[in-house]
């Protein structure tokens, strides 16, 4: 799915525009507060911009004129999944249930969704946490699970906000290799401060100016 984006969020002094071809990955970099998370929030449908337009494969996600009127598709109908900057694992669900959440929401049966979730946890070397609650995970462990949960949604467009920040050195290399495989052929936007992440994962780069 090709992606186009143009939006203005004046309360946060954020303004950005880009296009991305089908199956490619955009890396967004820029100093703290440049608006990286804001852009992902607008794409995912969690933030309503003052004005702008976004499309996926020609389908409109939002299209708001300067008065803020127009189309705005709610998050669950966008086919866009966000892995936010904080893990935000659902605290009342186990790790496995967290990862199975998206497959279940897509209509998969309980055990099929569990199997799928288990596979993703395996890919992220996190199966041994499957039955824990999120509160009993370390920072890096929680991040891995959040990544698994987003990947398990298998969306048209995947948005990752600093996916590897709290991951240990060895894990970074391992997960980067995994992401290269997973993102191949999938449209994605990855935010990172790490030039290595951007270099290995993204085919295009948007460098935001900072303040």
């Amino acid at each position, binding site marked *: 799915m090709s992606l186009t984006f143009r939006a203005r969020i004046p309360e946060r002094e954020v303004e950005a525009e880009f296009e991305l071809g089908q199956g490619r990955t955009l890396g967004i970099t820029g100093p703290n507060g440049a608006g990286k998370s804001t852009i992902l929030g607008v794409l*995912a449908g969690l933030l309503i911009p003052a004005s702008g337009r976004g499309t996926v494969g020609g389908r409109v996600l939002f299209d708001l004129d300067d008065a803020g009127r127009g189309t705005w598709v709610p998050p*669950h109908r966008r086919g866009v999944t966000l892995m936010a900057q904080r893990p*935000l694992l659902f605290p009342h669900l186990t790790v496995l249930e967290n990862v199975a959440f998206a497959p279940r*929401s897509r209509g998969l049966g309980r055990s099929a969704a569990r199997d799928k979730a288990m596979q993703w946890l395996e890919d992220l070397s996190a199966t041994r946490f499957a039955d824990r609650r999120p*509160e009993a995970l370390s920072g890096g462990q929680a991040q891995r699970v959040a990544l698994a949960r987003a990947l398990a949604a298998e969306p048209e467009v995947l948005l990752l906000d600093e996916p590897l920040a709290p991951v240990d050195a060895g894990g970074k290399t391992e997960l980067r290799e995994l992401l290269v495989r997973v993102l191949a052929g999938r449209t994605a936007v990855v935010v990172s401060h790490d030039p290595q992440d951007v270099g290995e994962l993204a085919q295009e780069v948007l460098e935001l100016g900072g303040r």
Partner: protein
Amino acid sequence: MLLRVDLSSFWGLITSESSLAALWLSLRTAATSTVLCVLLGTPLALVLARSSFPGQRFLRSLILLPLVLPPVVGGIALLHVYGRAGLLGQHLEVMGLSIAFTTTAVVIAQTFVSLPFLVVGLEGALRSAGTQYEGLAATLGAGPGTVLRRITLPLVLPGLASGAVLAFARSLGEFGATLTFAGSLQGVTRTLPLEIYLQRETDPDAAVALSLVLVAVAIAVVGLSAPRARAAARGVR
């Protein structure tokens, strides 16, 4: 209080036909009212906590009204609505449905006075839970119904449960509105508080004994359903 009742007559009293009928009626109606409060109160709390619209403050005040109304006045208000000649009651009457002075009326009275407890507790829980998890769940493809069922409600379950306990307790103790709106008919509308009230007219000690039964039931329900104590402050990640 205990001193005033000697034990043998105590047992005879609380197992008398009228006492048992009243206790059983109280438990049944309070349980039904609690279910109704949950069914009605959950959408109301969601509307109050998750949307903003003109007249929201007024709606909240309206829902909280039964809290401040002396129950007797609440009972009069219910008569004006559901009574035979009431706003709604006269239409129901035409359809052959008469509510006043039936067990249904008891349930309506209890639900009326208990609803605010559930709504207030749940609204607070919803507000403090925030909307972050809900938004994230939506980006994972979950529609509003799924988000409600699998994220919102489970997250506020402790708030919902404590609201339901309060509603049950309040229903169990309801007196004034029931007496006014539903009357006091053994086995039909005479709940335990009404039985206690009547006993007090003629036998104050018996009234105290029955109160103890009510207290015991209440302690059992409230105590058992209390939130499990968490271990003391531990863990920062």
